[in-house]
């Protein structure tokens, strides 16, 4: 009888190869390089989280509500106010501020990295062809899988958590920057060039402003992805609301886990509404609280999100 074990000599030791590659080559040779990448991230994060934690709760709540009111209208402002007060009352204010600092840091780097890459991809078909499969891979890998190589290369802690978040959340903004610029009407770009614009001038004067709506839709998606990843990053030592959820789960303390979860959801809704409204700046309107509530909990059906889904 032939049994599968007779062919053991055919088995591919894939896991061993990867181990060899990462442990014996990548890590020893490149660790200093990866370590140095942490520096800018931790600078931004520290500044931001010091600032957020030092800001009194009432001041911050008022400020965010004001921003919501100016960008997304009265309804979202009232919702923001109530949600933040609720978070404070259930005792999760510091965790929420930590999470917010991490999310904002991650999104900041996503913008700094993603928009230039998106612009380059829009300018060069070759670069786009190279970038596309990479982005596809990045978006299909389950979020947990990111954590393994990150820990090996960067160690554990908040900053590696944010780096994982950046990698996880950056694809949409690259994609939609690329898409937005490529979709600018061809004759408008041509007109800019025909009047003697340099490539930089036509980007700044024409392409970027006209792509801004699409880019903002990308920013919104990036923000949401960052928020979801920052929670998972608690597994490798990032603090904040994610930690509350995981400790709650670990101790079978359903109450605390739920509280953490609710905090995340509230934060997500606020950030989502404000960033979406930023993308549609031209149509600022005041809507009733009722309407806002309804729109908050109804499935998202705006055109920008639908479009990007198809493009993704």
């Amino acid at each position, binding site marked *: 009888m032939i049994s599968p074990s007779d062919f053991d000599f055919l088995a591919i030791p894939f896991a061993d190869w990867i181990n060899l590659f990462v442990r014996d080559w990548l890590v020893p040779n490149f660790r200093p390089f990866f370590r140095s990448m942490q520096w800018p991230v931790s600078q931004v994060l520290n500044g931001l989280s010091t600032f957020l934690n030092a800001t009194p709760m009432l001041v911050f709540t008022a400020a965010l509500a004001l921003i919501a009111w100016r960008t997304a209208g009265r309804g979202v402002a009232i919702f923001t106010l109530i949600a933040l007060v609720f978070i404070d009352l259930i005792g999760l204010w510091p965790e929420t501020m930590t999470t917010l600092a991490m999310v904002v840091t991650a999104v900041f780097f996503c913008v700094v990295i993603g928009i230039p890459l998106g612009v380059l991809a829009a300018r060069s078909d070759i670069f786009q062809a190279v970038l596309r499969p990479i982005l596809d891979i990045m978006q299909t890998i389950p979020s947990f899988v990111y954590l393994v190589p990150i820990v090996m290369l960067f160690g554990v802690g908040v900053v590696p958590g944010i780096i994982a978040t950046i990698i996880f959340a950056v694809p949409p903004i690259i994609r939609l920057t690329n898409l937005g610029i490529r979709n600018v009407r061809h004759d408008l770009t041509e*007109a800019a060039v025909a009047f003697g614009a340099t490539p930089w001038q036509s980007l700044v004067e024409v392409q970027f402003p*006209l792509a801004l709506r699409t880019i903002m839709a990308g920013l919104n998606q990036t923000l949401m992805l960052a928020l979801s990843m920052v929670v998972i990053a608690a597994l490798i030592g990032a603090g904040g609301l994610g930690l509350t959820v995981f400790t709650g789960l670990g101790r079978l303390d359903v109450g605390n886990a739920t509280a953490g979860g609710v905090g995340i959801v509230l934060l997500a809704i606020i950030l989502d509404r404000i960033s979406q409204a930023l993308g549609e700046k031209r149509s600022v309107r005041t809507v009733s609280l009722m309407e806002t509530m309804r729109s908050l909990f109804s499935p998202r059906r705006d055109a920008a999100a639908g479009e990007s889904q198809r493009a993704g």
Partner: protein
Amino acid sequence: MKTKITGKNLYKIFGGSAEDALKLLQAGKDKDEIFEATGQTVGVNDASFEVAEGEIFVVMGLSGSGKSTLVRMINGLIKPSAGEILIDGVDVGSCSDEQLRRVRREKVAMVFQHFALFPHKTVADNVAFGLKIKGMPAAERREKAQVALDQVGLGARADSYPDELSGGMQQRVGLARGLASEPEILLMDEPFSALDPLIRSDMQQELLELQRSLKKTIVFITHDLNEALTLGSTIAIMRNGAIVQTGAAEEIVGSPADDYVAAFTKDIDRSLVFTAGSVAEPGEALDLAAADLKSALAAMERLHRDAIHLVDDGKVAGIVTYRDANAALGRNGGTLRDVLNEDFPAAEPDTRLFDLYELAQTGLPIALTNGDGRLSGIVEPKAVFAQLSTGGA
């Protein structure tokens, strides 16, 4: 007149390296055969032309005949695969990016078919775009933009956004944007074809007026022959990338180079093309001081005409018909002056036939005078209609 733009044996091959396709062209293959053999498209095929300073040079041809490609070579948006394109003697096909940008900023502006206005900028900012690109300070460019907008009659809409304007107004903004940087050359790629017919002819007249006062050199694309004939001092007709005939309106319509051009001109309103001069006969007039009824009748019989002009001191004074003269002769004491019609139809030799219709309806021969009142020829009404009806031949 000075030559402003010269195209010398221009070729444009789209897709891949041009050399193979150029060889095939030289071997006499046509656009379709080359597409089948190499998958490349011939955009422009051996086009040569000259545009004189201050003229309106109209390029026409069917869709896909290479008109847009040809004008885009003039400002370097498309680089020729072979050949030279010279503006004031400088080759724009081979100069550096920096030089090319200077040409676009200083010399050549463009007006687009679908206006291509920037939707996120106000009308004034749209018009000032070229100036901003040049680095002109904000206050100065606002001033210049206002001047350009006044020229096209839209001074009051400076702070509107393009989508608040009608199509005709939008294209005026497009025109103002082209004029604002005070270019010497204006390239217009089917600027009026997205407008409805009434607005379109308004815009044509306005362009002619602007042209009269500003004296720009204009390269104008259209696929409408009537528009070409209204505007063009010179018309070039393109087919499959090649220029098949270049000439004034009358040459194109009067002696088409081949069947393609003839087919183009078949349905044309000939009254817009031909002038009174083209159907004139030599006029003979009698001197009012010397002639009397008898000599007038005799002259008409000799010339086989029904009417004759009379001149007074060299200038045309009026016309006498055979019938009136004969009737006057029958009456006692009738004189030539009694039957002289001083309200006679008159025109100049370069008046278009279109404008002779009304005069021709009087039935009297039309006197052609050169502004000085002297008779240079006459046009018989039937000659006007005969010229118009030879169209489909």
